């Protein structure tokens, strides 16, 4: 994204500057639209959840033959992910104020928190006591949390890049789209998790 905003060689032959017919940053708009379709992906999985848990006659939910979901552990995990959103916000406000250290520290902690979440999630898979092959409830449990886990992974890759570049001296009070836009995605991943947690574990 920075590329476009750098001044370039004088005798450079290129397109005329496009007219800006809207105030929103194209990259940001793109990310928001992408998030809309991401929400729809989750929507489809929640449809499956709805059919399996509600619509099917004789549909049941956990605990299934004695096995219940580790609500408490997942609760702690939720707290971790939410706090990662806060540290990310800290990083973003810092760079807007031109505080490089704040940004670097913020990004780094965010990354670590995200990693912890993923680790605990995997650990939970190992000990949860049923498999997706056992019953449709297990299928949709692994389906939804797995889908979200995949998004966390993507988010972590993005965060890793941003953090890396943060330490490489990128970003400034003026140019921080490269931090803003992956940030939006990470916040989305967090909010999604809260919904998943509510529907799968709490309700």
């Amino acid at each position, binding site marked *: 994204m920075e590329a476009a905003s750098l001044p370039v060689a004088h005798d450079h*032959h290129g397109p005329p*500057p496009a007219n800006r017919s809207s105030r929103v940053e194209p990259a940001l708009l793109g990310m928001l639209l992408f998030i809309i379709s991401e929400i729809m992906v989750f929507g489809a999985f929640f449809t499956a959840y709805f059919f399996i848990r509600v619509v099917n006659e004789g549909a049941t939910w956990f605990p299934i033959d004695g096995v219940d979901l580790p609500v408490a552990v997942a609760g702690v995990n939720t707290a971790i992910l939410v706090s990662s959103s806060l540290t990310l916000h800290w990083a973003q406000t810092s760079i807007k104020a031109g505080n490089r250290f704040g940004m670097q520290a913020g990004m780094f902690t965010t990354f670590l928190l995200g990693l912890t979440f993923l680790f605990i999630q995997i650990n939970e898979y190992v000990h949860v006591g049923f498999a997706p092959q056992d019953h449709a409830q297990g299928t949709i449990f692994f389906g939804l949390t797995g889908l979200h886990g995949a998004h966390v992974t993507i988010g972590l890759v993005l965060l890793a890049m941003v953090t890396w570049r943060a330490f490489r001296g*990128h970003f400034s009070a003026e140019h921080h789209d490269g931090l803003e836009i992956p940030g939006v995605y990470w916040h989305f991943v967090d909010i999604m998790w809260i919904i998943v947690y509510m529907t799968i574990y709490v309700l």
Partner: protein
Amino acid sequence: MITQLRRPGWPRAIFAMLLAGAFSTALSWSVRAAYGHDRFEHLLQAQSIVIIAMIAVPLAFLVGLGCFDYWFYWASGRPTRPEDHSSHGATSWRDYLRPNTDHKVIGVQYIVHSFAFLFIGGLMAMLMRAELAQPGRQFVDASTFNGLFSVHASLLIFLFVIPVFAGIANYVLPLMIGAPDMAFPRLNALSFWLLPCAGILMLLSFLAPGGSFASGWTAYAPLATDQPLGQMFFTIGVQFAGASSIATALNFLVTIITMRAPGMSFFRMPLLVWANFATSLLVVIATPFIAASQFFVLLDWSLGFNFFDSERGGDPLMYQHVFWFYSHPAVYIMMLPGFGIISEVIATKARKPVFGYRMMAFSLLAIVILGFTVWAHHMFVSGMQSWIRIPMMVTTAIIAVPTGIKIFSWLATLWRGVLRLDTSMLFALGFLAMFTCGGISGVMLAMVPLDIHVSDTYFIVAHIHYVLFGGSLFTIFAGVYHWFPKITGRHVDERLGKIHFWTTLVFFNVTFAPMHLIGVEGMPRRVADYADQFATWNLVISLASFGLGLSTLLFAYNVLSSARGGARATANPWRALTLEWQVSSPPPIFNFDAVPTVVGGPYEFGVPGAVHGIFAPTRPAEVPAGAAATPSTTPTPGGSAP
């Protein structure tokens, strides 16, 4: 050699694909080693390797070809390099075989690629018709036949109609709104190169043990989940096609919202832009659902999940709900861009403003909204909760109203115009009649009691082809003939074009009209064999369909020969007002020297002295990117100083 493999390009792509193949095998084997055998039995077979490869190899291909290079470079945190437009534009045919960031090149890539698949899919239709020419078994067995119509439909929907519209829009839309390119040129290149991945996968399915995927383009569970390996080529292929259309839709939306020329308010946009705006909304919101539905199938099939296993609490009807929540909007994804093309063609060739411009725009949005509320009209006999049928029947019927508004407005646009009846106009007029016919049969299907009888019969097949061929494909032909001079700088042979139109119109109707009858008489769809009572009609249909095939070949010959030796075209042969016609044919590499300013509506024909866009006096092409966003003619500070 090594440098060859380090530079983005085909050698590196092939090398990467080999690596990916090896990787897939390794992964499959290590997983086999790591897990107990009982549960992951699928992973114990070589199938697992194929499935992993189906995901890994196309991705490796894209990486090798260089679709991601810039992003990798950027993400690796090195100081970003200035954009030299090295990957922009085409000077030789080779430039069409690499990721290219020029929307015009990408448009051509899309269109050519899609038409290739029209012919492949059509060839399969020919085989089906040959088999169906007589009752009993001619020369393909049941499984091959099921494979044929499944691949036929999947190719023509996911690799012809949807992408070809994206292609046409890719070419003309940025020009129409006065943008130098799409908002995300690299994403644009990527979304094209995703398509061959999907297409090749679907074709390769014929090589799979047990034959190609054969559960229809709808791939209903649980049939799809207990099919042989071939099914997975659809399940995974669709993911690539879907990713492609989502990426393109994002690109269109951002381009339309943020890159319109100064003065081009939403209600000064050409209706083709409106149509693609509406379509892109549909794509962004709906497509994730088919992606998910195929994820479910993939998991059930390969890892033994239970989404659709009713014995373990799964629900087969859920598949149909999720699938149709995409696939009904998909049918409008396959029609709205066509509406846009028709508006352009009719307004220009009838020399009149589009009648009721605003209603035309609003009816598009109405169709988008209604389109999300009708999916279950495909499930009237599926055994779902019976009450759902009533609201779905009403919404489905109501969709005829905004569509009707469009049809009638086009008719009113024709009235008292000065009609230039060239090939593209003929196809536009043909579309009006044929699509109305298909739409009306659709409204009949919406009436639940009738649908209970004709659902899953050839009446549906007739409807499908009247809307998809008589609708979408006619608009595509109209569009290709209309913009051919702009894209190639040459005219098509009008005489051949007219022959193509009339043969198509006649054979099309002889092929698909009788299907209404045999459908109502009780011939089910998706059958390789049928009762003798339908023999005569099926023979007629088959013969006519071969004629239809040949007429399509005539089209192919016409465009190919004209692209080489057609008469030179001027910049604006149709005297159109929209911006794409104000630049040379074919347009300059960066579309405009300076972005024009829009001062009026796009179709002000007959209004004395009306203009749509004015162009700043042309200035040297040396434009400093990064110059101020206003189309000023004075060189800007950082600008072209000697």
